[in-house]
């Protein structure tokens, strides 16, 4: 696999001035990463983490303060760079002209990207996205789900090698979001398209991303596969109803430094996953009897919440799981 995109020490500092006091805000702070051919990379983080700023620099819509961007092994110079012919993007902050029809909009973008036989391409995309009957309707007459499909049609007009998608499913109904995800996966399957994808939807990220980068305050705080990040969150929870031996369990937890609490009549123990068999064996040996045992493994959202709260001294230590 070859590198489609490589980013080296990318930094963006915004300067502002109020009452003669100059201030600097480091929106993106020396981040480096790459996207391989056919890979889906998720860019995650709370609001203000630097995701959109990063995407904009990758598009040339924002000039970096420092750092380097390489597309297909060549340095990217921003707007007017030939690499823009081979990539495309969609985002929540960019729309296409609403008074033009779908066909007119796609015709315009087909000219920008110099697509040969663009009329055939538009017909094919219309079939794929199930908007054949809407081609001559202006965007003002479309639902938000239909508009999102049109935006995705625009992203596919030039047979891109890389798609930059900034929260493409935000504000969509769950069923349409699911369709969009299926479509993106099918495009990767058919054309080996690479994707750089930002989202707040953790399930979405877990479902489609091969690899995830967590950004917080402009810095990369974690980079791994979704499973790899979950593994880094060593702490799992056991939740169970204690039938007998509650005091023995409290004593055992205290002696072995397990974090034990009781909620709604159930014991909740924070524990490393690999220690669970030993824990259960030993409390059974002490005469503790339990029922309704649940093992609550961490989810990507837990990590996300941790990052958001900047409590990342050790993954999984500050927050309780969000499962109920």
């Amino acid at each position: 696999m070859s590198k489609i995109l490589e980013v080296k020490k990318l930094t963006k500092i915004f300067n502002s001035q109020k009452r003669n006091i100059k201030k600097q805000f480091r929106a993106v702070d020396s981040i480096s990463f790459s996207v391989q051919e056919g890979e889906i990379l998720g860019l995650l983080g709370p609001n203000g983490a630097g995701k959109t700023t990063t995407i904009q620099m990758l598009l040339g819509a924002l000039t970096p303060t420092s750092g380097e961007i390489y597309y297909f092994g060549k340095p990217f110079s921003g707007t007017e760079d030939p690499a823009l012919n081979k990539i495309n993007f969609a985002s929540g902050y960019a729309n296409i002209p609403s008074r033009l029809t779908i066909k007119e909009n796609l015709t315009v973008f087909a000219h920008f990207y110099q697509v040969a036989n663009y009329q055939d391409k538009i017909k094919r995309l219309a079939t794929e996205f199930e908007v054949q009957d809407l081609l001559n309707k202006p965007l003002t007459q479309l639902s938000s789900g239909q508009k999102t499909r049109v935006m995705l049609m625009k992203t596919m007009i030039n047979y891109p090698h890389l798609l930059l998608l900034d929260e493409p499913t935000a504000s969509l109904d769950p069923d349409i979001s699911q369709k969009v995800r299926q479509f993106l996966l099918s495009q990767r399957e058919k054309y080996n398209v690479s994707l750089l994808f930002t989202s707040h939807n953790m399930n979405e990220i877990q479902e489609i991303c091969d690899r995830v980068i967590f950004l917080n305050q402009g810095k990369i705080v974690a980079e791994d596969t979704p499973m790899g990040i979950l593994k880094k969150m060593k702490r799992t929870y056991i939740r169970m109803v204690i039938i007998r031996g509650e005091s023995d369990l409290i004593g055992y937890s205290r002696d072995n430094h397990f974090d034990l609490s009781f909620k709604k009549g159930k014991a909740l123990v924070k524990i490393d996953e690999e220690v669970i068999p030993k824990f259960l064996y030993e409390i059974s040996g002490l005469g503790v009897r339990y029922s309704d045992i649940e093992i609550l493994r961490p989810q990507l959202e837990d990590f996300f919440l941790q990052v958001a709260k900047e409590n990342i001294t050790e993954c999984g230590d500050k927050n309780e799981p969000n499962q109920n």
Partner: protein
Amino acid sequence: MNLTRIKGIILRHLFLFKHSWERVSDSFYWPAMDIVLWGLTSLYIQKSQNQVSGLVMVFLTGLIFWQVVWRGQYELTVNLLEELWNQNMVNVFCSPLKLSEWVTGMIGLGFIKMLGSLIFAIVLTLILYTVNLFSFGWLLIPFLILLLMSGWWVGLLVSGAIVRFGRQIQTLAWAGVFILAPFSAIYYPVSALPFWAQIIARMTPISYIFEGMRKVVQSGKIPIFEFLFSFILNLVYLVISVIVFRQAFAKSKELGLSRLDD
């Protein structure tokens, strides 16, 4: 420069023209209203003051040719604003379309639409007042080129300001060029202006064009000096405006183009 991409940006705004009554009225309705109103006004003045000869011709020529300057500026500035209103800036300028291609497309589109509006206005003037602006003959071509050049550099300066400061100054997209109107000698000679205004008028290439046109109307002679001086001034301002626009665009990218879409 790529012709397919230039065609793309021209198509984008021609498609809009088809769907937009505002654009159609800007091209035909308002010029027609101006011609009717000012043509009748100048007819009245000419009748009540017998010594003023050729007043209707001078007024209507000024009015119609001023539309050419305005049209040259308007296509650059309002079509740029159209992208801001549609949150389409990032889509357009982060596509392979180059800034120079966008400007060329807007100039080409402005030329096409100017021709449409101009022919409509000249024919309307001929029908309503039997004033024939085609009588300028081939001289119309250098006049139009010089007037369009003036519209372009004003348009590029205003576009630079819009790209830098966004929609908060959007009124300049329509009104920007009117700051030059009092000094452009459209309806009166430069000599009629107070001294301070004459200095500004002498630095305005449009004033030489309108003064030259009045000379053609009155004496039938071609004012070579006015043409040449206007051309040189226009060329200097056009070069400056291209530099200003490119720098404003670069500065805007430092702050982020998508902020213009918010």
